[in-house]
């Protein structure tokens, strides 16, 4: 089942209700679907389109703009290995080779057990700690080949379950905003008065 499941549909409706325009919930909902399925499926995109009343093409167009959305089956752990300058100078290439060797796959693919996807990435904003990698967007610094092997062993053994949620889950705390505490932003079409320094010209001129 790669449409959103019932509990996620309930969550989706709550997210949609936060925005004055339904369409604004597009990206949060794509994240939600990726959290559920590990990647963004066609069925989920269709489902999201139904929920926010846009076409599937609009969901696809928006979602595919972002690197963090994946459109192919992805392992439970996505390992991004930085290859940009600082990391490159400190052996990122060798580290990547080593990782490919350890996992028995090429960068860009997933281990046959579906556990780990390895890919090359650009600078992860931790250049002082090069070479770096991220597991499901959680940093690992000054990684040695031995560190890498240890990481893989720990992931396989489930030792890091508390620290690293499955792929697609960005944060484990979900924001809950009770209706009475929502800011209640106005629909942009209903905005008639602007800040004093911006003259609002209604559509159609004058």
């Amino acid at each position, binding site marked *: 089942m790669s449409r959103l499941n019932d509990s996620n549909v309930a969550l989706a409706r709550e997210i949609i209700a936060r925005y004055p325009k339904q369409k604004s919930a597009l990206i949060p909902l794509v994240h939600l679907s990726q959290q559920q399925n590990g990647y963004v499926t*066609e069925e989920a*995109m*269709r489902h999201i389109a139904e929920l926010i009343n*846009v*076409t*599937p*093409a*609009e*969901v*696809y*167009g*928006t979602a*595919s*703009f*972002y*690197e963090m959305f994946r459109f192919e089956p992805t392992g439970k752990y996505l390992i991004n290995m930085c290859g940009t300058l600082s990391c490159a100078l400190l052996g990122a290439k060798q580290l990547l080779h080593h990782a490919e060797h350890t996992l028995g796959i090429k960068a860009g693919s997933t281990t046959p057990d579906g556990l780990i996807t390895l890919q090359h990435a650009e600078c992860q904003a931790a250049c002082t700690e090069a070479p770096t990698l991220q597991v499901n967007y959680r940093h690992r610094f000054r990684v040695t080949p031995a560190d890498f092997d240890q990481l893989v062993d720990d992931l396989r053994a489930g030792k890091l379950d508390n620290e690293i949620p499955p792929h697609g889950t960005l944060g484990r705390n979900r924001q809950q905003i009770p209706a009475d505490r929502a800011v209640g932003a106005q629909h942009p079409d209903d905005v008639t008065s602007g800040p004093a320094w911006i003259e609002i*010209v209604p*559509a*159609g*001129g004058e």
Partner: protein
Amino acid sequence: MSDEPDNDLTNEDDLVAADTAVETIPEPDPNAVAITLNGREIVARKGETIIAAADREGEYIPRFCYHPRMSSVGMCRQCMVEVDTGRGPMLQPSCMITVLPEMKVETNTPMAKRAQEGILELLLINHPLDCPVCDKGGECPLQDQTLSHGPGESRFVEEKRHYEKPIALSEHVLLDRERCILCDRCTRFADEVAGDKLIQFIERGNATQVSTFPDEPFSSYFSGNTVQICPVGALTAKPYRFKARPWDLEQVESTCTSCSVGCRISVHSSRDELLRFQGVDTGADSDSVNWGWMCDRGRFNFESIEAGHRLGVPLVRSEAGLVDTSWNSALELARQLIDGASSIGLLGGARGTNEGAFAWAQLADAVGIAHRDAQLGDGLSAELLGVPRATINQAAAANTVILVGPDLKEELPVLYLRLRDAAVHGHTKIIEFSSQSTGITRYAWRSIRHAPGLGPVEIAKTLADPTIAAQIASGDVVLVAGRSNMAVSEATALAAVQAVLSAVPNATVLPALRRGNVVGALQLGLAPVDVDHDALATLRLAAAGHLDLLVLLGADPINDCPDADLARRAIAGARHVISIDTLPSESTQQADLVFPAAAFAEQRGTTTNLEGRVSRLNQKVTVHGTARPDWMIASELASVLGHDLGFTSIDDVTAAIAATVPAYASATPTAIDSADGVLAVNTGGGLPSVEATEAQPSGYDYRLVVSRKLYDRAVSTTMSPSLAKLPIGAGAHLHPADHDRVGEPDGAEVRLVSASGSVVLPLVSDDTVQRGTIWAPFNQAGADITDIVDSSTAVTDVRIERLT
């Protein structure tokens, strides 16, 4: 847009005011903005962009993404110019910057030129430069502007990117991705103009490309427009791809007659073969009809004119069926049939030219044909044309548009575009009465669902609702009136129109009648004198065996009349049938005598659109075989019958129309050739009073809605290979909840039973359909829904029987 010239009706009060105002100092125009363009003082309009002002002043700024009919997005940066607003000159994209007083704009300085050349060099980095094998080569804005504004040389020596070529975005539109310069015109068109957001940019940066959702093609009725506005050869239309080079094409302007919107188009041919049609836009403010857009049906159905099945010689019925004959013997036979007939019916004339309709009406007068009708019981009374008429521009500028008629997206597609635009980007509010969701429903201010057979009482009640009444009272009202449901009688439909007109007496009417020249034919003498002589009356007479001769002028009643059974019995019952047509149809197959007629683009003439606008039809290719224009057939037939219609050329007929039909008095050939054509509208008269029979509850469960889709079994669609696959096919569409109640799976066949017959159709679950109704598309391949429609009853009620 209150400054549109079309709405600026000068009345006498204004003239008086203007006279007395001579002495006072004229108010400065609040919309004028004085700017300096290339050292010249010019007056621009408030709120417009620099590029639009420059266009009007004849200063060309290169551009790719800018399109005057769509919003500016600043995608390509090709339109860079130097703009000085007092802080010194700065490079700015001229399609994104609105004019400000005292702005100084330079489009040709070394700085501006460097920017323009730089952008072109950048665009060409990814561009394959495969002009020699590209359909756009020769008429390509990228090619042209590279020559006029480009650097002349490229520093790029690396391998170009490659993509699989081409990929199909839809049934008609192909995309060669490596040629795309990401101008966003096609995607913007789909979103802003058509409202079919089925193509999008996907991915990012260097990988950005136009795409549909997987397995969900760009199946918009307007997809062909994207090919026309793509500034490079990235989008091509299948029917034209690799068919010709632009420099081999010849073109003339003409008017599309596939429906009565009458879009202004240009017709392109090479070596005497029609190759493509394009929309023509006469300019930002003045264009009255289609703003350069077309629907795909009008754009691609020229294929049927070139189809191998055209009628090219007269045919006569013999023991061996229809066999070829000569024009002389065919005319002689027609003479005998007409002379020997004491009762004749003439149906059709709405698919051709004004001249054809007029000449046939003259012939009908000369030989005394009492039964005539340009519609086939599927339209509305010609008296509708006597009600004060609105133009499309007036409808699109009106405060309120009331729709009591067909789904415009399906029947009058470009009118749908214009009204959609008025609702989305203008201030028009649409009030729609409909028994199911239509294309315009999502843009309507109020969409009122009613059971088929909408009664006047219901309409009056709805329009009296305080909010609706206040909206109607707030300004001009245009009523778009037509036939929304062919399972409901014409009288009932007319009563609904009348109810709106009595609630809103000063509403003007835009008649939503569908066939290309239906308005022209009705205005020029092919309207029935009364309901006892209209198409249905004629067919009933024939079916009863009381009609000696039935003449079908480009009409196919078997497929086009909402009572197919009656049409079939009529054609069998008429003693003789003469058909004048371009392509063989079910009705021509049964005729005793068939005259081959000249088709669109094979003849010159004029046509009248739903506004009453008379515009030019031009000939581009040689007539097929020995086919002749309708007017010529009428004129020759008249002379063998001993009458002289007095025409020897098409221009004689046009002149005779202007001389004898008051509404067409100003429709002289020169005036017709002007950009806007001539409005020919009969005023006076009004709707006949009809008694609406309130639909009574019956023992049946569902009430039937029969209406047209854009693509149906019309010969011009089925004989055009690009369109032939698009009709959805016959079916009984039910609301999902009703569908569940029937308890048969989607696609399962069921029997629909009405008081007048039964038909077996597949079930389709469809959430645009209202509960308690069945919608069946008209004239689709498969069992014929009109078999169970009885044209003499107010509404058609049906029940569903399971076959299992």
